[in-house]
């Protein structure tokens, strides 16, 4: 089940806005984790670096493939989930909770517009899986 309070990118990242702090937390979706299979490598950005919407922010690799991790929003990286590098299984076990990856400080709360809602994202994954 896709959490209803999140927004989703077509590149399979999710984003959650903490409106009070203007911080967006992001990770990858259950669907993405399932598609990747066994994750064997994760590269997260440096804290203090800049995140630019729709450009690579890091990378995630499984045995079979390497994919880029795209920033869903523009802003400054304020925190990364470093312990994930030793516990890749957390990503597929709890992708929307402990499996979060990066926190990005954004200028304003409007940044999530343009991302998909849960229902739109579900349709998007169905069309991808159908290929």
């Amino acid at each position, binding site marked *: 089940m896709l959490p209803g309070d999140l927004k989703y990118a077509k590149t399979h990242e999710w984003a959650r806005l903490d409106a009070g702090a203007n911080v967006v937390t992001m990770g990858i979706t259950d669907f993405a984790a399932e598609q990747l*299979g*066994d994750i*064997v*490598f994760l*590269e997260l950005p440096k804290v203090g670096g800049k995140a630019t919407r729709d450009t690579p922010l890091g990378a995630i690799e*499984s*045995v*079979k493939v*390497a994919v*880029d991790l795209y920033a869903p929003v523009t802003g400054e990286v304020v925190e990364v989930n470093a312990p994930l590098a030793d516990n890749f299984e957390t990503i597929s076990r709890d992708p929307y909770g402990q499996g979060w990856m990066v926190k990005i400080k954004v200028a304003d709360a409007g940044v999530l517009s343009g991302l998909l809602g849960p229902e739109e994202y579900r349709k998007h994954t169905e069309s991808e899986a159908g290929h």
Partner: protein
Amino acid sequence: MSELRKTVLHGRHVALGAKMVEFAGWEMPIQYPTGIVTEHLKTRRFAGVFDVSHMGRFVFRGSGALAFLQHVLTNNAAALDAGQAQYTMIPNEQGGAIDDAYLYRFVEDEYLLVVNAGNRKKDWDHFQAMRAAFGQVEIRDESEVMAMISLQGPLSKSVLSNVLKSGTLPEPKRNALGIVEIAGARVLLARTGYTGEPLCFELFVDREAAGPLWDLLVAQGAAPVGLGARDTLRLEAGLPLYGHELGADQEGRDIPIFACPLAKTTVSFSPLKEEFVGRAALQRQHEEFKEFLLHDEAPRSVLPRIIRPFAMAEKGIARAGAKVLPAAGRNITGYVTSGTMVPYWKTAGGKLATRFTDEVGMRAIGLALVDSRLGVGQPIRVEVRGRAAEAVLVPFHLRSEAAPYARPVLHDSPEAKGPAAPAAPTLDKVQMLLDMAAENTIWRQRECLNLIPSEMTTSPLVRLLSVMDPAFRYAEHKQVRAFYNAEIFYYQGTDFIEEVERMLEDELRTYLGCTQVETRVISGQMANTAVFSALVDCASQIDHTVERRRLRQVLNHPILHGGHLSAQPMGALRDYIARDPKTERPAVVHFPTMPCNPYRTDVAACGELLERTRPELIIFGKSMVLHPEPVREIRAMVNELGLRTVLMYDMAHVLGLVGPHFQEPFKDGADVVTGSTHKTFFGTQRGIVSMCSQPEDARWPLWEAVRRRAFPGSVSNHHLGTLLGLLMAAYEMNYFRNEYQTQVIANAKALAKALKRCGMNVAGDPALGYTQTHQVLVEVDYAKGPEVARRLEESNIIVNYQATANEEGFTAAGALRLGVAEMTRFGMREADFDPAAEMIADVVLRNRPVKDAVRTFRRKFLDMKFCFTGNEIETRMEQLHRLI
């Protein structure tokens, strides 16, 4: 995905929850719910089962089939007998690969070629276009009527054994084939695979039988493995994949077959292949390859780049297509052809006791097509997401030679460096060495049950004589015809040793019942080498201007049936055996064994073999030996056939048993007897060659050649101290022979029976008392031999672990080889082997340590028997001691 093809096992993959993907037009499982990493690890530690029915399977029949295959494939198909398989290439005229393939000859009149799924149509069209010139060749595409299942990993053998209805597993050699029945279906069974596993099988069955067979293998515990782990397993094993390491490279050019390490071994230039496709181009590659093995600076016009394994030295995973850069500089030096992160079981223990722990490691590795001037150990850089990450060229990622496991080899393992010698002042080290030598002697001489059949403690007299002068001297000598064949010595001060040698020859002649003995060779292996060299010398006597001709055909016992290492091409025979022009392998054939008793030669089957192969040399004798050799029977057959075959008996193990209680080799018709003098014989560690020949005999030139190949052929100084010791041992043996030999054989039978009573699995024929020699063979569990032998050692019981005929080499040994000769010498008699067997069974069956009990037991057997004692002897010994 509706138009994709489905294998007959498709429904089972879906039911197992596999993730299905398109692969070469097929809908195939990329992984099951456990995932690629787990599937990889399960295959390496337990067993994996793979549906490879998508691969193309072509069957070739007809009178022109062999000639056709010789023309369109790189390997020498004529080398395959029924029951054998080979890896091969389908070459193009430019020396590149149209595809790689495996050729199986399960039955005499049919070849089965397995090709890549993605190349099936291309290969088929290629064959159709080529076939016209080859008379009667029938090619059938049986990909759809036959299914193919691969079963790989250390437990694959037990999984198969458990489901086998009839037939036996193919002999434990890669590429051996068999036909068996499983679950009512006929299964073509091959010891082949694509994982690097030393225990590996591929099964071909009718389509209808595939489902039940798959279910049976899964029920036996084989883990289903998808294409994802199939790829990581083959990559770790360094095996090429068409489209990556073979076919077109990143820049669209053909990868030359000789650029691919495994592929190049498939190319044969045998005259039997005549003008095959790509021969000229491959010959150019071969020439260049040989050149640059010799000189780093040799030109690289046809092999500018070759495939090499590499390991990442820093974080990052190299992927296929990534650029490879030199350690410094920006010129592209090649491309990654395959790369990923693979898991491995971490190990503990080290050396033979190395075992997998439950901890898993990951390593980023790959294969790359790189500048052929870059060698192993060379640092490189690999582009990983826009960054040049450090990597290193390595010789391999995995080794398959230590069955039953494929072992990961890490490029940065601390084990590779080995332990450093402790640093200490020299005088401390001197004292430490003396203490250690005393400790070891006390342990082995007073506290252990020494049951290694190739070992013997020499008597105090023999030991003492071995360190006296002339232990440090030279006494080279050679017969000179100008002096009526007198032995002329090259050094002075040698009268004593000349006398000793003459007396030793006398004693041994008496012992063996022969007329000639050569005593200068200093080991059994050297004795064999001298004989092989002499045979080559004799075969080339007529014309000394040409290269000496090697032995054309030799009949021996293979190593897994107990044959001596020194009778094998991998041992002393290496430089003296010709290659069979048909198989391109050393021209050795093996004694057949009885189906019911693999330790006994099937004499009846030897007639046909002798007639067909007409060996120049037959080597009797084994290091795992329970019976006398059929020398008399084979001699009769050889004479009957009018062959000039030399019958050589390597009696290394049983030299001390020569006589009516065991075997009299010369009476039975042996031409040459070799042996080592320190196993059942009482001697110091040396070798001998003996013959029964007179100057007028046809074999006399061979004897003369043996003398030449001993000196100057093999030794200069011949360890004169141990020669002196051996003379005393020969006196002991001739004096105590009857009593000793009777006791040894009685003791071996007693040990065998006692072990059997204790519930151990004793090999051999109970009707014969299991053994007719000093040896007893006990089967423990598969591959448990080394571990059990180590446990016995911890309890002061010293034995050998031994691989049997069904096992894949010494690390997979499932038996123990025990010998009673040394303990017989220390006075053990039949009844003493009851408590000894109990202690062995305690350790082996009940894992109960018995070190203290063994120590106490051994105290009863400290005095050497079958040697000379008495006051006159003691006095002289003391005098010799004072002289040291």
